[in-house]
């Protein structure tokens, strides 16, 4: 197992290198002036800005030179300091948010992770529950209702659903506001007495004993979680239901009944765990998807996660930021895949041994 993990980890840099080459290569379809315009925000006023960008980012240099500049940076001739260089942790400067891309990621990612942690529970648990119930009551009323729910869920665009619940639960009822925290609590969090132990807001709030901050954070996360959940439940329901029906047909389920287990135990102890295999894969992808940032949901609910930032950056052709996100997401994806693989072994002993 250990060697397997190490082998997979050793692949990570190569995969990231591949990703970087790919993205970098695609950029070369633009000529230097077009690329320079990517560094200029909005309409520009002075002709020199373009030239300045070409010069500064060495956009008319040979490709390999530009790539190495990006990879290891350049030494400023005057100050003697290294500028840029992704290998030195410098992902470049995010034009759209005016800060280093690395700062942007390290600030935004905890928010996305926090949302992921809280969203994963409802999404997976309720999604699985729906699927199991619908399989257990195969063709019953619950199953039919769930089927309709699932069709509606998959066909609802996130954007429309998000705005709809925002209008109802925020604009009208004012129960669940968008954003990350109310201004009052955002002051609490910024105060010196509030310690940032984990950088995950909800956990820090609890560790600081600030239940009010914790609840306010949840209040802001409610609609994103609801939206993410509703749209994912449909998928979880379908996959779990299918897998569960398949499992309920298995002989060992009958065996379990014959043993004299109660129906609840038959479903919970024998059928469900075995039906979880495809669900674990789905859950893995879901978690990876959430960690990579959920663009539309974060944007609609003004949630300061990595997805909203990525959307903003790409909408404004902030290539450096997008590049940084792509690298980061690639990394997350690779690591998360590894974790899912390991989890798979936990769920299925047959995988564990082979």
């Amino acid at each position: 197992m250990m060697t397997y993990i190490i082998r997979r980890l050793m692949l990570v840099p190569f995969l990231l290198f591949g990703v970087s080459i790919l993205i970098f290569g695609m950029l070369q379809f633009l000529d230097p002036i077009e690329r320079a315009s990517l560094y200029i925000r909005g309409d520009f006023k002075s002709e020199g800005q373009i030239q300045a960008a070409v010069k500064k980012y060495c956009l008319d240099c040979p490709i390999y030179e530009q790539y190495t500049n990006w990879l290891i940076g350049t030494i400023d001739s005057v100050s003697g300091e290294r500028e840029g260089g992704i290998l030195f942790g410098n992902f470049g400067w995010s034009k759209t948010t005016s800060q280093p891309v690395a700062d942007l990621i390290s600030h935004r990612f905890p928010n996305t992770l926090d949302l992921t942690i809280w969203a994963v529970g409802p999404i997976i648990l309720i999604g699985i529950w729906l699927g199991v119930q619908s399989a257990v009551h195969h063709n019953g009323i619950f199953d039919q209702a769930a089927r309709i729910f699932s069709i509606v869920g998959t066909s609802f665009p996130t954007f429309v659903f998000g705005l709809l619940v925002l209008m109802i639960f925020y604009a009208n009822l004012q129960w669940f506001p968008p954003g990350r925290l109310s201004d009052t609590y955002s002051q609490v969090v910024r105060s010196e007495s509030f310690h940032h132990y984990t950088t995950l807001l909800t956990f820090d709030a609890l560790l600081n004993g600030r239940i009010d901050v914790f609840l306010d954070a949840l209040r802001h996360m409610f609609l994103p979680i609801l939206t993410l959940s509703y749209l994912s439940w449909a998928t979880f329901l379908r996959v779990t239901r299918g897998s569960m029906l398949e499992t309920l047909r298995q002989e060992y389920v009958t065996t379990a009944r014959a043993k004299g287990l109660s129906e609840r135990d038959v479903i919970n102890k024998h059928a469900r765990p075995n039906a979880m295999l495809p669900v674990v894969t789905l859950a893995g992808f879901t978690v990876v998807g959430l960690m990579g940032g959920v663009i539309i949901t974060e944007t609609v609910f003004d949630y300061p996660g990595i997805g909203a930032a990525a959307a903003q950056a790409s909408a404004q052709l902030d290539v450096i930021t997008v590049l940084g996100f792509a690298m980061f997401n690639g990394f997350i994806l690779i690591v998360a895949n590894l974790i899912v693989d390991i989890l798979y072994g936990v769920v299925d002993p047959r995988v564990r041994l082979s």
Partner: protein
Amino acid sequence: MRKIFTILSLLIVASMVLAACGGAAPVEDPADPAPADPAAPADPAPADPAAPEAMGSSDPTTFTIATFGGPETLDPALAYETAGGEIIQNVYETLVFYDGIHTDKFVPMLAESWEVSDDGSVYTFNIRSGVTFHEGQDMTASDVAYSFQRGLLFGGHASPQWLLAEPFFGVGNDDITCIVDGCASADDREALSANDPATLVAACETVKSAIVADDAAGTVTMTLASSWGPFIATIAQSWGSVLDQDWAIAQGAWDGSCDTWQNYYAEPSESDPLTTVMNGTGPFVFDHYTNGEELVLTRNDNYWQAPAALERVVWKYVDEWGTRFAMAQAGDADFFSVPPENRSQVDALSGELCEFDLAANAYKECVVTDDAQPFRLYKGRPGIARTDMFFVFDINPVSNYVGSGQLDGNGIPLDFFSDVHIRKAFASCFDWDVYISDVFDGEAVQSPVIPLAGMPGYQADMPVYSYDPAVCEAEFKLADVDKDGIPAGEDPEGDVWTTGFRLQALYNQGNTTRQVVSEILAGNLAQVNDLFNVETVGLPWPTFLRTLRNAEGPYFVSGWQEDIHDAHNWYQPYVVGTYAGRQRMDADLKAQFQDLVNRGVAESDPDARAAIYAELNQLFYDQVPTALLAVATSHGYEQRWVTGRTLNPIFSGDYYYTISKK
């Protein structure tokens, strides 16, 4: 495992329910919200729940602006966009500032008064005493001088410093490098540093001798290259802000030495130490900026004037319009930016209308139209930006947008638009009425001249082009595109009227204004003669920008937003600067313009200046290098509980000192 799951899900559900119940007001009084701001959350709920929510803000001391796109930099020397300008304008202060809603009247701020020498080239400012920076130091004349010197030496084309460089170094010298090596090393620190050190020191000394502080007398004397009409207007903007010298140096900004200034030249905002920190003298103190999320200012209780009414001003950067709209409806946003295409949605919720009176140059008394609606609508004030149609006199041969590149009915020759009759024909085929109604829903006015109303040079009675197929046809027949000396209408060998033409009009995808301009033109040209083909082509932004820069498009539709409210800021780019360059305007025409522009800006007597510009206007009308389109009028909203807003269009955003909520 399963138990943990169950407990966890119960916990989540329970928390959600609790969080929901905590909806209307904070769950409990946060005991110690923030040391800096003890008052804020003390009184959480509005007193009377039965009172209509729409009529009062839940938090009268915190002002929230829901907008998109945060500032690029908070360094006044570098900020050149409204998002940053708005913050700077509320935290830093300038020597002079705009007088209320007027764009051309000024009041003393950090300068108590000032004198101008008779020839208009020396300004002496008496610096106000008793003003302190937010971090405690007293503001002195040296701070003022340092701020301006630093700005000029900072330079670079990505900054607004060219607006100050020209008055100090002379017209055309739009960067500090122009007095080092004739602008050769503009934007290139490496090249600049390669200059002889003595030359570099001399340039810096020139700046220092042009801006001299006398701390004992409390004055700053600025010596311009020559008289500069709009100088006061220029320094009233954010790039005229005063920094605390010691603080700035401590942050890592230019140390004030003439030996090292080149190391700070053309610093990009990513490595500029003042990008995300602020220490001004203004009514609000910079609290924090969470990039791309929010920016918060708090009230300066030690302000040299009476403190502001608002305690906190919060910008929320919310990209999605629907979300901003929800915030406005929930009463959580006091100001909110509305994209033009969503105006009808908000108009329906506007219960108060304030219309601009062009004659009085002020908004009329607001009238309540529907007391049940929460928003107030301001409309009708002409803006400070305009989109126009620029003809390219000498199209780049690499262009893909000129068809065959010849006068054969399937393209245009590269010098097509150098024929004044072609330009006039195009101008006569454009329909302003359709443009104003389609693009602006009627909320725009045609511009008769380059500068805006109220500026020297503005002539409301100047003749304008308008859609007239007969004139359009006549001008095409007067054109001589094949250059045989015979106008097209009489040319036996045929000319543009008989052969026709084909060209591609470009716009950047998503910019519907630019797209519609060409579509209107294309339709009318085809009506006049079905051999005239204009195809509209949408390009991605980078490609569009390249075609602009390389003069590849036959004509381009582009916008200008003024930096300072002065005629020069309009004439300069249109007839000699950026746009004239991109149009590759004929050299002798440009020379005529250059002469008029130079004379105009140097003239400080308004009437004399107007006379010079009138001459320029006539030349511009006759030559029509650019078809001037229309200035959109304002259409903005606020919550009806907002009072005291100063609606000055030159402001970057708003000036929150005067604003309060009821």
